């Protein structure tokens, strides 16, 4: 491949220039990988804290005062939808916690221990004691317990909506990371709230579900609304509840794309102008080669090769820089985990090489148009 041979020689003899372009591409690709990954990781963490431990689609009775019936038809309807990852029927009861002169409103969520574990990852977040198993068992947030000087084994007195009192037993403390849960929610088995609310065995206050793809929630709800088994059901869509957050994430993504596009444009302009200068500098050589019979296509290919080589080396170096930057950044005090998306990193590298090749189009055309006679006559 003569054009490749000539390209590498031109690059090697103009070493300073070549290294400069490589550095330019590397910085561009590094910024692209760094900024893109950072924003994506930040968003993933935000999303995870928002909906990781929460219901994506919550089913309730259309009549808010009535419980929802978890009928066999509804059970089948939910279980047969493969987009659903988790189904947690629960009973939520608002009570007033009371100890001496202190009191605080809390929600008691009653569900099967297995389900509580699945949605709130309680096994991981339990910091003392054990999970609920008996009807009187309750677990509370560690911060709540500290505030009211409660420890595992203590009795927990709660006042029910009707005014009657109930004594529960604190068997464990958790810390799920969000104060909305830690300070305001207690978990029990489904038995106690069922008795307190006077519900039937298949009646719940709501049915929480998690989906494999949280962003499919709206679509899933639309599908369910058409089914007989789901009649009389009202839905709460996390995307609607968290629309503020989603708008924020959208804005973040757009500005991240803007930065990435501008960086790539800057890289492309840099390569294009340097290659164009280099093409002018090599006019004499290309003219001589053409006088000796090199075709226009081969001459044009010289600069495509140059761009390709610069693109590959620059992108490779940029990849290393980018990962290095991310690693350095991860050493600092950050509140989210950096997750590399191989598709994004691979895509960024591919874009780097493609942009390099595209920016060679003009110099390459310039080169293929050189007429040998002008060079030969020019002396």
């Amino acid at each position, binding site marked *: 491949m*003569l054009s490749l*041979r000539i390209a590498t*020689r*031109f690059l090697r*003899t103009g070493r300073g220039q070549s290294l400069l372009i490589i550095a330019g591409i590397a910085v561009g690709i590094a910024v692209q990988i760094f900024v893109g990954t950072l924003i994506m990781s930040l968003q993933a963490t935000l999303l995870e804290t928002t909906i990781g431990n929460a219901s994506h689609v919550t089913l309730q009775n259309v009549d808010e005062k009535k419980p929802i019936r978890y009928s066999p038809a509804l059970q089948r309807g939910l279980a047969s939808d493969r987009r659903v990852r988790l189904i947690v029927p629960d009973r939520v009861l608002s009570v007033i916690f009371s100890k001496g002169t202190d009191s605080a409103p809390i929600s008691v969520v009653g569900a099967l221990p297995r389900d509580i574990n699945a949605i709130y990852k309680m096994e991981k977040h339990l910091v003392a004691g054990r999970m609920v198993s008996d009807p009187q068992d309750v677990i509370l947030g560690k911060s709540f317990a500290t505030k009211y000087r409660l420890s595992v084994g203590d009795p927990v007195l709660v006042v029910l909506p009707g005014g009657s009192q109930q004594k529960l037993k604190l068997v464990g403390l958790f810390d799920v990371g969000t104060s909305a849960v830690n300070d305001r929610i207690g978990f029990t088995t489904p038995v106690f709230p069922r008795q307190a609310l006077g519900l039937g065995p298949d009646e719940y206050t709501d049915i929480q579900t998690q989906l494999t793809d949280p962003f499919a929630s709206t679509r899933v709800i639309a599908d369910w609304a058409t089914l007989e088994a789901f009649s009389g059901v009202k839905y709460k869509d996390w995307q609607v509840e968290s629309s503020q957050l989603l708008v924020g994430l959208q804005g973040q993504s757009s500005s991240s794309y803007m930065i990435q596009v501008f960086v790539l444009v800057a890289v492309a302009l840099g390569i294009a102008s340097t290659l164009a200068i280099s093409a002018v500098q090599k006019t*004499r*050589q290309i003219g*001589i*080669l*053409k*006088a*000796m*019979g*090199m*075709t*226009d296509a*081969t001459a044009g290919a010289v600069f495509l090769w140059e761009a390709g080589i610069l693109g590959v080396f620059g992108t490779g170096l940029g990849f290393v820089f980018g990962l290095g930057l991310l690693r350095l950044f991860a050493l600092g005090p950050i509140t989210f985990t950096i997750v590399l998306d191989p598709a994004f990193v691979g895509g960024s590298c591919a874009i780097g090489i493609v942009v390099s090749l595209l920016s060679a189009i003009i110099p390459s055309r310039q080169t293929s148009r050189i007429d*040998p*006679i002008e*060079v*030969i*006559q020019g*002396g």
Partner: protein
Amino acid sequence: MADDLLVAEGLSKVYFDVIPTPALTDVSFSLASGEFASVIGRSGSGKSTLLNLVGLLDTPTSGSLHLNGRDTAGLDRVARARMRNTFVGFVFQFHHLLPEFSVIENVCMPALIRGEAWNAELRQRARVTLDMLDLGEVAEKNANETSGGQRQRVAIARALMNRPQLVLADEPTGNLDTENSALVYELFRKVNLEWGTAFLIVTHDPTIAQQADRILEISDGRLQRDVAVPGVSAAADEQARS
């Protein structure tokens, strides 16, 4: 006529700059295989123009040119490039070596352009040509680390690399001293006799012009004189043998 290497008929070239400049007017001649001809004429008379037309670097305004029996008017850019590569060898007035490459790489360039691989066999062939031109010890040097005389000889080696049937040389000795000029002439003669290569040499040097088999004189763009020089070939033959 049939086995003529080159047949030019009514070849004319007008440059359209600010005003039309006729550089070559109605030149007709033919060159047989193995012929050794020189082209003379005053500066600006059109010698380089003629050579560039014959070497397919430039296109005539009118007239026809047949190379190796083929009408060059019908050739596209790629075919012209191939013809420049394999049929003719060009020695330019300015050596025009590629400064990024070594001497041997420069010499191999026409073969690489033809599509040959950069291998030992090719380098060996280049070495033979370089040795013949007494350039053996500068083969691996960079092209611009050699002397003016050496560069001109490298350019000659390069022109001969694809064993062309026709060598076009535009003042190949223009920048050389008498000794080097004589050397270049001897080389051309040697190649002419050993390989049967035809030569068309533009020169200002009367000694070289006189040593050709035939002299073409251009004046104001016209072919003024086309004469055979008797007996030179035989003398050169003897010289080569001794």
